[in-house]
């Protein structure tokens, strides 16, 4: 089995999506243990990818390949994993969006990838997401964290508006709000009473870890 777990780990580490799917399907057809496959195999791969990134050996494309391979394996094993809920390690959930009026989503996508690589369950709502949609997602998904991206000085005000809406809906204290984007800074985050700010994806993960510790 150890070899198979290594293969799973490597499929994610190398970002080989097809292989990851094939190996995950094998778990189902051979009635293997999905939870073990995840914890001993695929997740090890993403952790290793994250480590290589920190070491400067992996670049963003490597991480995106790895995260997508992991997500594909997860999708295959999803229903099987849910059967065993309870004994599973519950991953923390994060909702990500680029705010309304702003169509720049690369930065937010990179944050999503880093979050996935670090074991978060990422719900990426996309770019130019209406404020109401973000509120709805917070209600439905009940994430630990919501991350709001804005690249434009003109759209960063939506970060503030969303926080106000969370307050009005009475759900502000159910979720930590983190903000980012080129014109955003700590000062702005403080001003709008966000829970945190980060100017890059790696420290965004650290921030999320701290906020949910």
């Amino acid at each position, binding site marked *: 089995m150890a070899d198979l777990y290594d293969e799973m780990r490597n499929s994610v580490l190398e970002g080989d999506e097809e292989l990851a799917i094939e190996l995950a399907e094998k778990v189902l057809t051979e009635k293997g243990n999905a939870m073990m496959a995840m914890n001993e195999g695929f997740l090890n791969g993403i952790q290793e990818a994250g480590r290589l990134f920190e070491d400067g050996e992996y670049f963003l494309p490597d991480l995106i390949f790895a995260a997508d391979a992991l997500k594909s394996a997860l999708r295959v094993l999803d229903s099987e994993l849910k059967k065993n809920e309870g004994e599973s390690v519950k991953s923390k959930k994060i909702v990500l969006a680029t705010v309304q009026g702003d*169509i720049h989503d690369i930065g937010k996508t990179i944050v999503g990838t880093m979050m996935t690589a670090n074991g978060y369950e990422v719900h990426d709502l996309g770019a130019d997401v209406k404020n109401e949609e973000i509120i709805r997602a917070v209600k439905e998904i009940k994430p630990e964290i919501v991350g709001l991206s804005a690249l434009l000085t003109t759209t960063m*005000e939506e970060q503030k508006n969303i926080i106000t809406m969370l307050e009005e809906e009475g759900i502000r204290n159910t979720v930590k709000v983190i903000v980012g984007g080129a*014109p955003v800074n700590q000062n702005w985050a403080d001003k709008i009473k966000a829970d945190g700010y980060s100017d890059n994806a790696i420290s965004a993960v650290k921030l999320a870890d701290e906020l949910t510790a």
Partner: protein
Amino acid sequence: MKMNAYALSDEEIRIIHNDSLQILEEVGVRIPVEKALELLEAGGAKIDWEKKNVSIPREMVAKALDITPKEFTLGARNPEFDFAMPSSYTAFTLDGAGANVIDYRTGKRREAVLQDVADAARVFEEVELGKVLWSPVVPYDVPGGPCGILNTATSFMNSSKHVQDEVKTLDEVQYVIEIAKAILGSEEEVIKRKIYSATYCTVAPLCHDEEMLEATMELTKYKAPVLILPMPACGSTGPASLYSNIAVANAEALSAITVFQLMTPGTPLIFGAALGIINMRNGIFLEGAMETALQLSAMGQMGKYYGMPTIIAGCLTDAKELGMQADIEKVMTCLPLVLGGVDAVNGAGLIESSMTMSFEQMLIDGEIGLMCNRMSAGIEVSDEKNFFMDIKEVGPGGHFLKRKNTRTAVRSSEFFTPELANRSTYSEWLKLGSPSMFSEAHKKVEKILSGELKNPLSPSTEKVIKEIMEEAKAKLR
């Protein structure tokens, strides 16, 4: 001859042109504006109405390029600063949309405020090569809705040069036109003098922004020039070779040209570019990279191939502070463009990937620009500059200081004398207080900003513009 530098051969320019046409035909662009789609469909383009994707046939692009003006003048409030393109030298424009300034009083980086936009305009007024003023920062102390209009009005009040900015929403267009009308007196003059132009960024890869396209299309009704700025980043929002990323940027530019010419045939457009590469570790757009400079230089050539005026991003840096990295990167991203003969370079005054403005840097960049232009002017080998008679009369030994030609030459464009760079002897330099380029620039900034406002508007015009600002504050959300 003039000194030249090119990134692409003529053959390579044609190859990229064809690649871009193939992209437009086979991949298409997303244009989420109904009016634009209708015009494109009527012109023969194939539309996927659900996805709002358009395949633009090459004949349509050719037709648009055909009616795009080859020359026009960016008017200035003060006609002395009118900027005719194509230009025999490379001018400078400020680059927009930074967020911070390095406060010239404290030397510390802080968030930008509206007063910085005014001060930037005043310093820019004194930059010799500065011809086009794009308010370089978005101030934090005004609300987002009226911000663009307040910036534009503030620029006009503090500088008499040509003003350029974005129109982000349809509502903004009327305000901009009202401001120009207040200065020039009539709509007819606004159309004729062109004292305002807009920048228009396409969204990589191969998209257009709904609101900005709507607004900019509306603005072309007044024949306001539009600077088209594609900015795909190699490997993230564009393909991972410089060559293909240029083809995507060029395709985006061609799609914008086609739309604007369908909207207002013969409307003046400027070929621009702000494409580049990213840091593959954190995703940050890299402006000071050599690969960015190469792509920008190539795009300058594409614009010239189409016979259009060109304003290309350059004189850029990713440095977080003034100093060695900033100046090295700025020279390296400026010189190739000047040697390629683009009409203007935009980027002066900003550091940190155009996020932070420094007035001192703006003046230093002005000097970098002058140096690059001197380099570009090259060596004149002509009968007028053939001083064989001087050589003969001085003969072996002797000196040329007492030649009429020498006396004339020192005051001619043969020799460029920098204003900020120090050329003293060591003891002279010590006596001057050991000035650096920065300290000289700083002194000049203080002098400009403590002095009288140059070329102010008439009090009555200023009053009208202030009223327009108040209205924008009340009505633009």
